């Protein structure tokens, strides 16, 4: 604080003016009280008062405290432990014939599990990957030796609708995969985006075959 004491007259003027305004405003007796414990060192006065330190320290402390309290009040809105605990499911896919697909639910979201026909696999592999909006091969999206099992989230990457094409008789879109009726996104047989507003391919969740016919998602 000793440096503060010696602050030169450049900074002095506005501060003195401020103090004067305060004095005039407060009741006369009260003003005397403030003047005496204002942190003014002697009659010369100074640009920065000791009390400024108290003000800054107190307000900063309150600010840090408020931020510390705000954190739990915001974080309580994120997924709770019981929601995160529903992380994985196991699905028996033995009954799904080539060309068929099922819908199941994982983390409260639809999942499509499709058993691709050889023709669909061939069609997917025919596409020039470089021409795709979200370049991925079918092999990138399936497990080695199990290329016929295409497992994706049934959530359109545009705005989250459930695309059609999994159940029998549903529209499969111009590329024979999935079609989102909300805003007209077309996905191909590898569930890659080909046409429409969606930016990305249908997401492939983490999954693994734990036996020949049982797949664990998540």
């Amino acid at each position, binding site marked *: 604080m000793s440096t503060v004491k010696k602050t030169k007259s450049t900074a002095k003027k506005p501060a003195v003016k401020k103090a004067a305004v305060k004095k005039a405003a*407060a009741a006369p*007796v*009260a003003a005397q009280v403030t003047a005496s414990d204002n942190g003014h060192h002697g009659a010369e006065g100074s640009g920065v008062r000791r009390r400024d330190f108290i003000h800054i320290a107190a307000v900063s402390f309150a600010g840090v*405290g408020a931020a510390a309290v705000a954190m739990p009040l915001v974080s*309580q*809105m*994120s997924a*709770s*432990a019981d929601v995160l605990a529903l992380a994985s499911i196991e699905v028996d896919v033995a009954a799904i014939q080539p060309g068929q697909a099922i819908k199941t639910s994982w983390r409260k979201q639809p999942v499509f599990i499709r058993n691709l026909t050889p023709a669909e696999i061939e069609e997917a592999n025919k596409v020039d990957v470089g021409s795709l909006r979200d370049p991925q091969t079918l092999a990138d999206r399936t497990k080695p030796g199990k290329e016929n099992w295409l497992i994706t989230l049934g959530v359109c990457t545009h705005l989250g609708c459930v695309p059609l094409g999994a159940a029998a008789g549903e529209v499969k879109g111009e590329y024979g995969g999935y079609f989102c009726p909300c805003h007209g996104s077309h996905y191909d047989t590898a569930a890659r985006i080909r046409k429409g507003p969606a930016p990305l391919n249908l997401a492939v969740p983490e999954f693994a075959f734990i036996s020949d016919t049982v797949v664990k998602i998540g």
Partner: protein
Amino acid sequence: MSFPWAQEYKPQGTVSKWVDERLPLPRLVYNAVGAGYPVPRNLNYFWNFGVLAGVALVIQIVTGIVLAMHYYASVDGAFNSVEHIMRDVNSGWFVRYAHMNGASFFFIVVYIHIFRGLFYGSYKAPREMIWLLGVTIFLLMMATAFMGYVLPWGQMSFWGAQVITGFFSAIPLVGEPLRQLLLGGFAPDQAALNRFFSLHYLLPFVIAGVIILHIWALHIPGSSNPTGVSVKSEQDTVPFHPYYTAKDGFGLGIFLIFFVAVTFFAPNMLGHPDNYIPANPLSTPAHIVPEWYFLPFYAILKAFTVDFGIPFTGIILIPAKLMGVLAMFGSILLLFFLPWLDTSPVRSGHYRPLFRKFFWYGLIPCIVILTYCGGKPPYTQWVVLSQIAAAYYFAHFLIILPIVSRIERPLPLPNSITEAVTGKPLPAAA
């Protein structure tokens, strides 16, 4: 409103001026809790508790809104949803413990606030309306706290709801139908839980509204002060900001230290373990007591054990159950009449030797005893003690205060607040 020497709000920048001409909200704040509100210069720390009560309400509303995001009012799910908040929701334990203890701390600061009003005669003219609104807030708080306590649907919640709504069945003729109307059934169940949740969410905002009226009414005569002497000149006051914003800020810091210490280190100190048992409509807990802040009133309820009738005739005029309920409500409603029961023109207890004796050696011990007895099982010695204390409570307000006001010779009052503070008389020019 306020005193002629109150500072006027002067908007500085063009934006402030533009806003001030269209919606003078900053001006309102400036005049309410800013430099535009002159306050007696001699307020002690008891005058912090109004602001603290306001902060406590804000804490309850903020944490309560968060809890309502995770709670569901269903007899099958309510208890589990509270446990879900405690175990699964991120920081949920903190928010719930803050809300739970926040209620207790709200009552602590409000009781000290009421104590301040009782001792310093803050209820007297011209501040009667502030007092009446304050008692109204207190009643609303009690209703809100009770309904909130029911929501976790534990054993104490359920049986608390059963007992409190049972009060209404004491009313002759319409009692039982009224109780069924309030509960939406024959016993507390889904209908009661749902409406309690709805009202528990609503009432805090009603309280906030009445608080605005409370502060509005306060700003007509201005704050009272420890001497009880009215403000006479500018010398007697200082602007609310920065003098009392700083003092209230300091008091708030101390308050939060206590609040946080209990919330983190003894969160269940003020609660009952029985409320961690899910509600069971077929089994009452061995010892059922309300939360600590209701204990004095609970003791008054339990103190009435004998029917009131004409002696030796067997005619019962008022059954004991009804007497207890009337007395319990009466003990609070009584406070509405306080400004007219205490007729002494001297406000502060400092200058009232006789009043002060009855206050410290009569009223305060009486309330302590009632609080203590309220938490005790209904054995004879506690019941007798409650009866004596309850009798004193009513006698204090209805008999002693009016008589004391008449016969007491008050000490000489200082001529002004400034004189009381500085010991020097006010200059004649002022």
